[in-house]
């Protein structure tokens, strides 16, 4: 039964991941991401991490993807990609190399599947629970069952999170969240005195000026012209309020 669940959820996860990479429309990619996250949540349930499965659905699919969709709708979905430019030298070759390396690694795993991947055998790992951390199998073996109850999982995670082992990391995490909130507010705030928006035509002069061999014809035209065109083709509507 676990195998059937695993393969179905693995199919969902991989299909969603391929959808994120391959789909052109960012909205469709976000929906594929939801599929992937649900598949990973199914794997979490399969691995008896019940609380984290719920957190995965609530936080990822409920909050982060919605945030993505908000930003996509805010910016518009018509941004066509230019697939030709290659800022990092040979990065597409690197992607192909990554694919080949993964296939080779899969072949190696298939060859070495008779051996063990994880170093520590599970019996020895469970027999020595480190300080503060609780081993899962302790309670499992007490109740003489193969699985632990979901509420027991939550209680264990909470106890372990506030133990001496992880409490410092927990406090650091709280600090990180505070910094993220403050940073997001500062970044999204509209400043009182806004800089003048640089027109796109002139802006293209500043871009990639350290690689003059890549100047397009349009950019060379502008460079050779005596006085650059002062038109503002892509002036956002809110810049009039600034000019006053």
């Amino acid at each position: 039964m676990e195998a059937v669940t695993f393969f179905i959820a693995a199919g969902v996860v991989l299909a969603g991941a391929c959808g994120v990479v391959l789909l052109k429309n960012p909205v469709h990619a976000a929906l594929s991401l939801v599929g992937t996250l649900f598949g990973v949540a199914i794997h979490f349930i399969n691995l008896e991490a019940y609380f984290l499965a719920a957190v995965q659905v609530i936080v990822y699919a409920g909050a982060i993807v919605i945030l993505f969709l908000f930003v996509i709708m805010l910016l518009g979905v018509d941004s066509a990609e230019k697939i030709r430019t290659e800022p990092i030298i040979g990065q597409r070759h690197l992607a192909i190399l990554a694919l080949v390396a993964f296939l080779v690694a899969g072949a190696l795993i298939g060859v070495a599947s008779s051996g063990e991947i994880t170093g520590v055998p599970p019996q020895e790992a469970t027999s020595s629970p480190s300080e503060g951390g609780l081993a899962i199998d302790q309670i499992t073996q007490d109740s003489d069952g193969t699985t632990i109850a979901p509420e027991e999982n939550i209680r264990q995670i909470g106890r372990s999170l506030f133990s001496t082992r992880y409490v410092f990391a927990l406090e650091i995490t709280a600090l990180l969240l505070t910094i993220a909130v403050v940073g997001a507010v500062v970044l999204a705030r509209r400043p009182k005195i806004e800089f003048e928006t640089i027109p796109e035509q002139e802006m293209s002069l500043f871009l990639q000026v350290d690689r003059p061999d890549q100047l397009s014809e349009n950019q060379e035209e502008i460079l050779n012209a005596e006085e650059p065109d002062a038109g503002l083709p892509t002036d956002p509507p809110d810049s009039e309020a600034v000019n006053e």
Partner: protein
Amino acid sequence: MTLALAIGPEYYLALSAALFVIGAIGLLVRRNPLIMFMCIELMLNAANLAFIAFGKSMGDLGGQVSVLFVLVVAAAEVVIGLAIVVAVMRRRPKASIDEISVLRG
């Protein structure tokens, strides 16, 4: 046939590796900053899956606690990243991700 198959941690690790590689390929290939963020999320999810698979096989709860921390870090990263994207796009619409090399330190 698959009913008799015992799913060990190596299956989950293989799936995690596949998910990570797909995310990395997407991050290298795609040019839309939002989709690049989604690919980063894919890679973080692959790490989470590996954490929980190892935690299950070792019988330690530290894997699940680590996944909680990774979740928090991912949420903070997405918030800051999307705020940067919105700020850049507001200033300079139709900017490609390659043209925002000003942020390069």
